[in-house]
Structures are given as C-alpha cells and as structure tokens.
C-alpha cells in the first residue's frame, strides 16, 4: 500500500475542487471497492477525498413521480425503501442479489455503479492489464475468461499485446437495473452540474480500456434519478451465479415489461456480466416491440441481440456458455414477469 493524504472537506464543492486540483486524487464513499484496491496496489492515489458524509443520504420523491437516490444512501437503505420496492422491484432485487449484508450496509448509491471490474488480472498488479496499466497488454486473452465479456468485444480473438485489448465486464448488479430503468445521473464537476443518462455513463473499452465511464476527473455523482415507470409496468432482476450467494453474476437480466394492450407489450432488457458496461439489449427490445411476449418471440429477439456475441476462449472452456445462458435466463425472466402480469 502506498501512503496517501486523506481529506474530508466541508462541502461537495470543496471536494470537487480538491480532487480536480490533484491529478492523482480519488473520491472515497463506502470504500468497499476502493480500499481493497488501495491494499492491492491497484489504486495508487496521492489524495483520497472522503465524500461519504458530504453527498446526500436521502431518498426523495421527484415531482414527476420518480425517485431521487442521494449518492450516500447505502445499498441496504435503497433496497429496503418501500417506494423502491413497490415501484422499482428490479432495483431492490438487484441490490439484494449483490455482495453481502455487511457490504451492502456500507456500499453507496454513488460508489456501486463506479465499482471496477473483478477481472482477476486487473486485481493482480503482477500481471499485465491494459485497464490498470495502459499499454501493458491483456492477460485475460486465453486465460481465465469465465467472468469476461461476450458482447461489445471485437469479432476476432483479441490481441493480448494490443493496448486496446480488454474483455473485462462491469460487475455491478445495481447498474444493470439502473440501465433498464433509464436512470439519470446527477453530476457535479469542476465545470458545474450536468445530467448523464445512465445508459451513457459507462463506456466500451474503445481505444482506452482504462476508462470505465465518461466521467471526467473531479466529477462527482451527487444523486441518481429514477424516472417513473408507466402504469402497470412490472420489473424483475434475475442473477445467475456460481454459488447461491456472495458471488458476482455470470449473467444477469433486468427486465421491465409494460402491457400496451392485448397481445402487445413494451419490454426493456438490460444484461449484466457480459460486457464492459451494463448492456441494454436494444436490438432485442426492438424485435419484441408491439408483439406478444411468447417464448419463441423472446428467443428470436435474443438471437438478434446475440448475433454479434463473441465467446472468449480460455481456461476450462472459456465463456461461450454465456450465450445460451443469456437467452435461457431472459426467456425465464420474461416468462415469470408475463405470468405475473396475467
């Protein structure tokens, strides 16, 4: 662990100013991810600015019928909030499917979507990783890819030495639900406030895998806004993992279904554990729009969504199993939602 300065300024504005002024500064919220990274040497900041008590911990109603989650509200508080559970069950379920009770009591609304990948190579400073150490290469190619991406990756087998190679996944469950809910991210930065649609917060690796999001240095998440869902909408989160609890998703599905009329509904689907960002399955949504949600229709929609999916070969057979698993999980999740709507 490298020594660093710790600051707890008096306001969010000061916190933003402090971080903006120091290139090697980071915000600290619950610390459940950042502190691990400090110990492992994955994060090596000079300055840690604690915003935990500065941002709001409130969960408040918005005039349009939505909800605002203050950045410091904990994952446990959000999951337990009656309004969240009634109006956005997908979010409560996603939160409760993540980590453990102890971690959720500490982890925050602002920190959760910004947690970093669990790629084992990213977390081990003795191995090459373009995300942690840009240009060093990618150890995951042909390695342990079970938790790696199948969507948003190049069509050819990635080159382990190329600086843009990264097949890491975003590990958050909460973020998958937020993607399906069309949440809005409220940000305060050195240049003032801005709102980012949640779907645009995270990025694909592109030519710079070191950047997970579009946030600029010094930009602080102050709240997440959940727009109201259409009347009669139903939502659910389904996480598939290697043990019953306390494991990251192999794949996960956040779905919101709204019945538009007889035999017709609108579906929103977000997928977790499969890409560098929470993956909004817009192609599948399009295919399904206006039609009946039969299992065949869902399968066809997923076939369209996954047409460009690229399994990553690797140890123990790689991660090709995620492709059929995704379809099966989406089919099962929508089946249950439709049955519940009837």
């Amino acid at each position, binding site marked *: *662990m490298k020594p660093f300065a710790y600051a707890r300024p008096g306001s969010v504005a000061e916190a933003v100013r402090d971080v903006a002024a120091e290139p090697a500064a980071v915000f600290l919220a619950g610390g459940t991810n950042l502190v691990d990274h400090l110990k492992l040497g994955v994060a090596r900041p000079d300055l840690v600015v604690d915003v935990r008590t500065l941002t709001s911990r409130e969960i408040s109603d918005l005039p349009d019928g939505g909800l605002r989650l203050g950045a410091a509200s904990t994952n446990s508080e959000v999951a337990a909030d009656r309004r969240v559970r009634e109006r956005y069950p997908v979010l409560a379920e996603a939160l409760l499917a993540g980590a453990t009770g102890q971690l959720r009591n500490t982890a925050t609304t602002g920190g959760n979507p910004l947690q970093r990948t669990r790629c*084992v190579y990213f977390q081990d400073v003795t191995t090459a990783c373009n995300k942690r150490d840009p240009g060093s290469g990618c150890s995951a190619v042909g390695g342990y890819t079970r938790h790696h991406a199948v969507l948003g990756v190049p069509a050819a087998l990635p080159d382990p030495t190329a600086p843009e190679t990264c097949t890491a996944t975003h590990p958050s469950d909460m973020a998958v639900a937020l993607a399906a809910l069309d949440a809005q991210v409220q940000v305060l930065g050195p240049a003032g406030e801005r709102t980012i649609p949640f779907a645009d917060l995270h990025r694909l690796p592109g030519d710079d895998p070191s950047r997970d999001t579009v946030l600029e240095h010094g930009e602080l998440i102050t709240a997440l806004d959940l727009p109201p869902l259409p009347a009669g909408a139903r939502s659910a989160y389904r996480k598939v993992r290697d043990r019953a609890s306390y494991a990251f998703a192999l794949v996960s599905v956040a779905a919101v279904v709204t019945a538009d009329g007889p035999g017709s509904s609108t579906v929103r689907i977000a997928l977790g554990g499969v890409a560098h960002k929470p993956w909004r399955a817009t192609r599948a949504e399009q295919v399904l729009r206006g039609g009946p949600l039969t299992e065949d229709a869902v399968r066809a929609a997923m076939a369209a969504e996954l047409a460009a999916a690229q399994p990553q070969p690797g140890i*123990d057979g790689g991660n090709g199993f995620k492709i059929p698993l995704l379809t099966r999980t989406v089919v099962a999740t929508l089946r249950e939602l439709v049955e519940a709507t009837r």
Partner: protein
Amino acid sequence: MTDLLEPRAIGRDLARRDGVAKVRGTATYAFETPVEHPAYAHPVQATVARGRVTAVDTSAAEALDGVLVVLTPSTAERLASTDDAELAVLQTDEVGFRGQLVGVVVAETSELARQAADLVRVAYEERQHDSVLSVDRDDLYAPEQVNAGHETDTAEGDVGAAMASAAVALERTYSTAMYHNNPLEPHATTALWDPAAEVPLTLWDSTQGVHPDRATVCRVLGLEERQVRVVCPYIGGGFGSKGTPHANVVLAAMAARALPGRPVKLALTRQQMFSLAGYRTPTIQQVQLAADRSGRLSAIAIDVVEQTSRIKEFAEQTGVPTRMMYASPNRRTTHRLAALDVPVPSWMRAPGECPGMFGPEVALDELADELGLDPVDLRIRNEPEVDPETGKPWSSRHLVECLREGAQRFGWADRPAPRHRDGAWLVGTGVASSVYPTMRQATSTARIRYADGRYVAEIGAADLGTGTWTTLPQVAADALGVDVDDVEVRIGDTEYPIASVAGGSSGLNTWGSALVVAAREFRGKFGRRPEDGDEATGDVDQAAQDEDHAAYAFGAQFVEARVHADTGEVRVPRLLGVFACGRIVNPRTARSQFVGGMTMGLSMALHENSVWDPQVGQVANHDLAEYHVTVNADVGDVQAHWLDEHDPYVNAMGSKGIGEIGIVGTAAAVVNAVHRATGVRVRDLPVTLDKLLTGLD
C-alpha cells in the same frame, strides 16, 4: 484386543472448554500473541514462474523510514539444511514457481513492511515454464512411494482380461480440481530470537503440531530442540496446510534472527497462501470396472495422474482407497506424477481418500445405471469379507449398515424417478460410500500430575478447532476413573511432552492412548489416593497395538440435488451421512467434524476450484471473492448420524478418528444426484452450470 475404557465422560455431549474464550475473542492466535514492541514482516514473492534472480535492488525499500531489515537471497543467513527445497528459503537464486519467496522486509508497522516489499525491485532471467497437467505428458513418472508410505502401484490378477470377458465393462476418466485449504486464520507466526535467553528462539506459530514444527525448524536452522520453543494454543483451521511447516515459518524465524531481541510478526495474505501454504493436487483418474449381470465386480482399477512441484515431491495417495474398498479378484492401482513449475502440494483434509473416492464412487453409479441396479445394492453386493488388500479381517466394518440406515433415514426407497421435475427444478438423489483408515502415530507422551485436588495432564497436542481441549479431558477422566471436571489438560506447547501432528484423523487415537497409558502408570504408582506433586508419564508405544486387523472407519452419504431447468444452477437442499467410526467421544464436537467435512465435500462438488492459469503460471482466482467456498445459502439440511460401533481392536477409547471421513465421498454423491436429476454425467469437478446447460432442453 484392547480393554475398552468404561465410558463415563466419553460419549458425553460436553461443550467446548475453549468456546467462551473464542467467542469473546480472548483466545489468542499466533499473530495476536501479546509481545513487547513487535516488528512486522512482509514477504517479497517471485513474479516469474521459472528462472533466476539476477539482481535485487532494495535501496528504495531501505530508504523508507521505519524499515528495519530487508533480506534477499544474497543477504539472508545460510541455513543448516537445504535438503527440503520448499524450506530452503532465500538460499538460491533459482525460482521454481511463481510466488516463491525471494525476499522479506521487516518494518515498524505491517503497512510499512508491505509498502517497502512493493518497492523491492527484483530482476529475473526468465525461463520457459511448464505447468500443465495432462495424461499425455511423456515425462510422467512413478514416485518411489506415495503419501503416508503407501506403495505406488499394486496389482492382483489380470484386470485387462477381466475387462475383456466381463458382461459389463466400464472405462471412464474423472478429474478433481486443484484445491486450497484456505483456513480462516491465515498462516501466521510471531517469532522472537533472543540469543542470550535460555531458549533463544520462540515461535508462536499457527500449527497442527508444535513438536513436529519445532523438529523441522531445528533441522533447517541447525538448532537444538532445547533452543526452540513452539507455542500454539489455538488454531483457526488448517485442514492439513498447517500440518507441516511451510516456507513462511522459516521466513519468520529468519526475519527474527536478523533482528535479535525484537519479536517479528508475519501473517501471509490470502493471496500469498495460494502459492506458499500447500494445496491439493488436481487429479486425473482413469477408472475401470468389470462386472457380471448381477453387479458382482470382477475387476476394479484406478490409474491416477497428478502433479507435484519440480522443487519438491508430494505424491497424493489417490489410488489407495480402491485397494480395499470393494471385493474383486482382479485389481490394479497406479500413481504417476508430473513434476511441474508449480507451488508445492501438500496435505489437505483426507489426502488420498478424498479425491480417490470421487472417480470410483461415480463409476459405481454409472455401472449401477448400466445394470439397472440400485446403487446402494450394487455396493452391498461387493462387500468384501476381509480386507482385499491385506487379507486381514476387519477390526470392524459396517459400511452395509451405514448404507441401509442412511437409505432408510433419507427415504431412498421413495426417491423420485430420473429427471423428476418440481416446478422450475429438476430433482435427483445420489449416494456414495465414505472411508478413512484408522491411524495411530508412533510417538506421543502424556504426563499426569496431581495438584490441588485435580489431575493436570500435559501433552503437546493441538486443537485445530476440532475439540481437543474438550475431548482429551474426557479420555483422561475415564482413564483415571474421575469426574471430567477434576481433569485439566494442557496442550499446544513444546514445554509439554512430545505429541504427534494433528493429522490423519489420528490425534485423539494417539494422544488419548498416551493419556490412558499415563493414567495407568499413575494409578499403578500412586493408587487412588495420590498426593500433591505425584506425577507419571505414559507413551503411546506402550499401549496395546493390534496388527492383525484392518482398521477403517466407513460411512455412506446421501444427497438430494436440484438443478434449475432454465439456468442449470445447482442447489443441494439435503445431505445425509451415516458413519461407523467406533466410539464417539463427544457427540457435539464430532457432529461438527462430520457436518464440516460433508459441507467441505459439497464445496468440492460444486464450488471449489483453484483455477490454474498456465500462461501466467499461478492460480488466477487467488482470493476468497473468486475462489468460491460453499456459503450458508448453499447449505441446506445437513445431517450426520452414526452407528453405535464397538471396536475392541483399535485403541482403549474404541475411537477411529472422525476429522476427515466426512469429506470423503460427498462429491461423488452430489455428481450422482445431479445425474439422476438431469441425465448429465459430470466427470470433471466442480459441477458448474455450464457443464449442465447442454443437457437441459
């Protein structure tokens, strides 16, 4: 025949004597030992899998304020013995595996030590490494013997001919993964080197045996036993990884010797434990079974391929249980090793039996399927009258009774049809047998003294969480014929008489036998009315020893598995084991051993897997977030039952050892249940959902 003790304290459900201290946090573990002004050590590990250290730059580390000592291969003391390459810490430039120790930093705080360790720059000449285990390697070799002194290969009759002529012949390959012991308490030592003191070196070390630990440290450092004291009252688990000292213990002692008078603390991080604290080798098991239509075996064979480290041999005795488990005229077992550029494997709960009862017990299920027989009946049909390996009669063998009672308790007869579906879940049940040899070590001495109206027994035994603090007083009380509350037993210190390692489920059998001898001596000398200070000792080698019988504990495990029809997720709502392990000394601590073993077996079946990355040359998932151990949510109803077994041949307690048998067979029973639920036979552990998906429609 041994005269069994009249059980008065033995058999009682007594609470752990150390329980309150542990719950309150007042029980001190090795790293927490209160010492004056400790310094902290942090290892530096090799980042290449094979090669040579060409230069070490310690200047940045040494420049940090508060760094006390930096040791490297060129500055560390020369050890007296380097025969054991695992323990020849910092003695050569050669790197035999990634993660091997190449240095250590000692500093005023653990944070500083860790920071400074990061700043040590090591340059390597890297060589091609080779770490992939496979049956096709052309350098597989037969070790001279396998763990615990067993023969490498055995053969009787002609397996090939039996396979060719049998009504049913089955040939399958199974594999078990690499597993790490991962005790909750990391491997940790507090070490003090005080050259002027009467006992210059004190190690408060988390170990399964203070005396064997000391013997090894003395050999490596060239010290006399009287110069070293090892203390370990409590252990936060070990499962074998603390059964022999690993490199970290030597490193802690070396760090302390570089800083005379100053206690030095060294605890491995979880990540470091994946390369420095031993592990169970992956195994590949080629199993052959031949049988007639009634299910009677005419051949049984297992050919095992497994790995060891190029720097040190450890050969797991995986094929050994096949030698004695079932009757068959033709039999063969072999072990072949690949010596790879990997960390050194070692003991992990039930070495040999645990992996070795996977392949054959799944194969029996496959055979039962082919024959249309109930797998419980198939096992009963192949019950041997005498030990097939030695021809000796059994001291007691109640496998059939375990199978029958288990079947009855589990509701086996009413088991659902194959691929039974209950809502979203496919349901299946499975069975497998368990076995573990009954052992007693050759060395252990107990001393009993009468003081203040109580009997104090001392023996350098270990309680690795198993209950020794509680069960030894029960044995001593019955041996002395007094109330258990009048007996105090002290363990975990080389100041007490020599005791064997807590391993091979032999602890109670060995130390209890020494206590019984000591009690007999004591009563012989002082009668029933001793005076303060009266004292007697007893050695285990004076206890009656039976050579004429084959002594094993047996068991049967039954599993209900549920597989999600859409996703392939596996849940195991029920595990039920029935064991025949001689007399149970304490039902409470025994139950937690059985249940713990079975849960660890479930963990092996579904979750545990040290994912070896041959490109990098290390375990990829080297922390507990990624190395999955079964969690509470995975564990349903786990029941352990036992028969009231009376074995007059094993020892005076009539006990067979219970620490390991619970993990034996569980994984096979899970695989068999999953097969019944889905029709998919998973032959390579762990059973993960990706292996089931293609078989679900």
